[in-house]
């Protein structure tokens, strides 16, 4: 911990020290950490869709999407699914504990292009997390957009993230929010099935729509092709891709996807640029 520096640095591989200020359990295996710079260090401004590299001391480093509100950069929020060694170590952190952070990195959602457009946001599973900053930004600037639609698919009702946010978004009259689950549950009274049929319920003009998608790649490809069949240009559909990010600054090549390094050329890319590769097995 003593090796961590307390101020921004031009050295991209050195983490800064952040302290856990809040911890929320989202689902059985997913939790959200609010982090603040240690010792009153400067905040970490970010744009929706960017990610950081988070270092669990003595365990390792993982890329994490930033999931908080860009309007409050003093709080760095990450929603994390505990699936590997590092994320399980992060899951053990409590308020006051310290974590190393590098970043933010990458190309985020095209928020400038959403202005004046119909905005269609489609999330699957934990894919809602990287979209949350974009949703908060769009809804905070609602008058700058045409229609706003949010479609979210999850495995079961118990796996739905941000239930308070979902309730608040659904209660708005200026956004169309549709939620579905793959598996029914006894107390679930909402939709069951995949996300694509819910697109029938949305109102948007294909020529003026910007669609942003995040979720399992199979889901994103199916949704993107559905949107393309409805007349939305693949250049106006954006997806967030994940690969094995290590350096996060385009040096190591672990996250190479075709000719792109997703850590610096992505993670958000226009569907038109990756459509063929997304249909390629084992890439």
């Amino acid at each position, binding site marked *: 911990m003593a090796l961590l520096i307390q101020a921004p640095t031009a050295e991209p591989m050195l983490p800064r020290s952040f302290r856990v200020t809040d911890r929320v359990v989202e689902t059985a295996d997913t939790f959200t950490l609010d982090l603040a710079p240690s010792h009153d260090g400067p905040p970490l401004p970010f744009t929706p869709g960017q990610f950081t590299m988070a270092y669990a001391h003595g365990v390792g480093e993982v890329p994490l999407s930033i999931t908080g509100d860009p309007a409050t950069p003093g709080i760095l929020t990450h929603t994390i699914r505990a699936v590997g060694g590092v994320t399980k170590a992060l899951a053990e952190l409590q308020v006051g504990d310290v974590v190393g952070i590098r970043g933010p990195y990458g190309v985020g959602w095209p928020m400038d292009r959403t202005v004046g457009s119909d905005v269609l946001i489609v999330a699957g599973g934990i894919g809602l997390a990287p979209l949350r900053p974009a949703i908060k930004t769009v809804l905070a600037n609602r008058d700058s957009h045409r229609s706003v639609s949010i479609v979210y698919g999850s495995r079961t009702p118990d*796996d739905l993230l941000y239930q308070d946010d979902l309730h608040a978004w659904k209660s708005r009259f200026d956004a169309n929010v549709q939620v579905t689950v793959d598996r029914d549950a006894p107390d679930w009274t909402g939709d069951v099935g995949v996300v*694509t049929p819910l697109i029938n319920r949305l109102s948007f003009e294909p020529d003026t729509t910007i669609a942003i998608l995040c979720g399992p790649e*199979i889901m994103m490809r199916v949704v993107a092709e559905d949107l393309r069949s409805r007349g939305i240009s693949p250049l106006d559909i954006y997806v967030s891709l994940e690969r094995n990010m290590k350096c996060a600054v385009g040096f190591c090549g672990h996250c190479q996807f075709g000719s792109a390094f997703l850590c610096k050329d992505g993670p958000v890319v226009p569907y038109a640029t990756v459509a063929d590769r997304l249909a390629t097995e084992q890439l």
Partner: protein
Amino acid sequence: MNLHEIRQQNPMFSDMAESSLSFLESIAHDVLVARDETVFRVNTPADRLYIVSNGTVALRIAGPSGPPVTIQTLGEGSLVGLSWRLAPYRWQWTCQAIVDSELTTFDANEILSACEQDPQLDADLWQVVARESSRRLHNVRLQLLDVYGRE
């Protein structure tokens, strides 16, 4: 919502001939179903075709024990009920409204009789049923993949 509006909303009906659409409109009736009301029940005669004009219905199945399980919900513009088109002409699922809903309904016997006289209508309706069956098969395959559990 009339069928022409549904055609605009649902690509499934986009290739249907004007004459076929007009015939369907001539025999259409609107019905209101309250939340939790059963539209049709599994293993009973499938003698109607439905389109959801407003609201949402669920396709459910139940075993001898335990509550019914919903496999799919169908919203505005969706075709409900394919079993009227193929033998044994019995519903394979139970359909229940999950919110107060409005359905447009068509007498399947009337449709099948008309299809015998009108090859265009017959072809159009096979097309609709085939497209919808293919789409649902595709969607259920995606559900079976459990993609959200593998992220």
